[in-house]
């Protein structure tokens, strides 16, 4: 079975043919159409059968659109607000004000880097305590002014390091979850790439939890899970499957509310199309949430999380 790289090569060839086709007297249209169809078919095959591990790879693909890419497509302007007012400005978690479909919103977004320099700055999207404390500040600001909160999740997890532990990363995540629970405005969280464990949950405890089709969300990375068992590549794939970390799986399990479709091959194949589906979903969900009074919004949120989990009742 062909892999993504092969398909990309084929696509490039087709593009070359298209260029050639512009030369007068040379008509390759029929051949090009055939090739295009073939490519489309191969792509469908490849991605329709995507194993969970492949989804992990797509979710982590460095070509995949990141939060700022969607923000640029979906929102009108992003007025970034920096800093936790206490000690730092985490570049892996951005906060700001923006406008969506004419409505003012507060945005909390995890952001990975595109190149080594940016990844150094953004810690590969791994959030430190300062990031979660900035998020909490944003939640309070949003609450004060009645801005709904949109949070875009894309992190391998909270940053595991000495500095993080010294600044009580666990306590910061707990406080962030607590703020998400208490904030009296509508909240929508979208997992756009990686939803890595506690680092994702911290800003994911929303009224609606949406997921892009190829995003993943897991309590532990497949590598981490595999490491507990053994370390072979196969085990990583097994773990990826066992963890039920894909969007369709999580929808089946009732953990998320909606899967937002991506183009074949993943969001990076067509940012506009993905962003447009994402935008539609956010607006629709926000519209529904905005109907509710604050009291019923908070009551529904409580019910949602009070009841999450699966267990069996023992017969007495």
């Amino acid at each position, binding site marked *: 079975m062909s892999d993504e790289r092969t398909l990309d090569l084929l696509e490039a060839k087709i593009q070359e043919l298209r260029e050639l086709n512009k030369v007068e007297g040379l008509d390759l249209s029929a051949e090009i159409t055939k090739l295009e169809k073939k490519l489309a078919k191969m792509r469908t095959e490849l991605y329709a059968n995507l194993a969970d591990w492949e989804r992990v790879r797509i979710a982590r693909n460095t070509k995949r659109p990141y939060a700022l890419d969607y923000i640029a497509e979906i929102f009108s302007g992003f007025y970034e607000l920096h800093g936790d007012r206490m000690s730092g400005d985490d570049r892996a978690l951005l906060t700001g004000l923006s406008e969506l479909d004419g409505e003012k919103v507060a945005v909390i977004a995890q952001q990975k880097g595109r190149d080594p320099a940016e990844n150094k700055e953004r810690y590969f999207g*791994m959030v430190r305590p300062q990031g979660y404390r900035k998020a909490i500040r944003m939640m309070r600001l949003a609450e004060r002014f009645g801005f709904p909160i949109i949070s875009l999740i894309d992190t391998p997890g*909270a*940053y*595991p*390091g*000495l500095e*993080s*532990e*010294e*600044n*009580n*990363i*666990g*306590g910061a*995540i*707990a*406080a962030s*979850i*607590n703020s*998400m*629970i*208490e904030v009296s405005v509508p909240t929508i969280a979208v997992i756009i790439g990686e939803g890595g*464990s*506690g680092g994702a*949950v*911290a800003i*994911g*405890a929303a009224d609606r939890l949406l997921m892009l089709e190829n995003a993943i*969300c*897991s*309590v*532990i990375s497949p590598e*981490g*899970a595999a490491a*507990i*068992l053994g370390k072979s590549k196969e085990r990583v794939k097994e*773990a990826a499957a*066992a*963890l*039920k*970390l894909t969007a369709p799986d*999580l929808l089946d*399990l009732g*953990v998320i509310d909606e899967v937002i479709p991506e183009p074949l091959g993943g969001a990076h194949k067509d940012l506009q199309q993905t962003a447009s589906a994402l935008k539609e979903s956010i607006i629709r969900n926000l519209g529904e949430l905005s109907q509710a009074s604050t009291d019923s919004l908070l009551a529904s*949120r*409580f019910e949602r*999380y*009070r009841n*999450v*989990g*699966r*267990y*069996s*009742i*023992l*017969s*007495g």
Partner: protein
Amino acid sequence: MPIFKDKQYFRVNLEKEADEALWLRCKSCGELVFKRRVRENNNICPNCGEYFFLTARERVESLIDEETFEDVSKPIVADDPLGFQDEKPYPQRLEEAQEKTGLPSAIILASAKIEQMPVVLGVMEFQFIGGSMGSVMGEQICHGMEEAIRRRCAFILVSSSGGARMQEGAFALLQMVKTTAVRARLAEERLPFISVMTYPTTGGVQASIASLGDIIIAEKGAMIGFAGRRVIKETIAEELPKNFQTDTFAIEHGMIDRVVKREDLRSELATVLRFFQEGRDE
């Protein structure tokens, strides 16, 4: 625990099984010590002061007034919503943990008294799949807090956990939110939540409910932190200080209120409870 083997509904009680061995050898000082004396001494070596591991039952026993134990847990056991299998299927792992610990899940939930003051008390059992928090533990913690609200008393949670339970995937992760949501209700009711961190309080438990105590007490020798040493070393080649994620690290970095010796924990809890018990207008 024959009832348990039939997977019937059962209640935890604190009656001890007969101890076969009379003596045990302390790993710290190497001395042979009389097992009953160790038990009566909160599992602390009477010779060198080393803390032996406390099971959840033993922990409950060490904290509450005699004959005040009442199991108030919900009659539930874990599901296998993911159909999770690693070297063994999750249901088998659960069954083995139940056999080993005599508990239906990784937490005991009790109503009891501490120096005559009523509390609802949750105690995690580390030997039950690393005390990991899955749907059952999350539900029991919430149920415990709601029980505290009904009884207008304090809720105490003694953590001993490696974090969220991998085998329950996203459901485990969301217990962080669930427990936080109910914890907010307890706060609205102005009832105290005392979090006791013991060895180890890490991962998703430290990053949610355990860190949200009105008062956070760490047992001496506790390990407290979010990420595991291994993960940190793999992610970033960093030299970690000697006291990394110990009780002293936690207190130096403002994460907890107090470090308390095991033998003082009961009276310490009583002290705290008294502050919230009397002189309030409820």
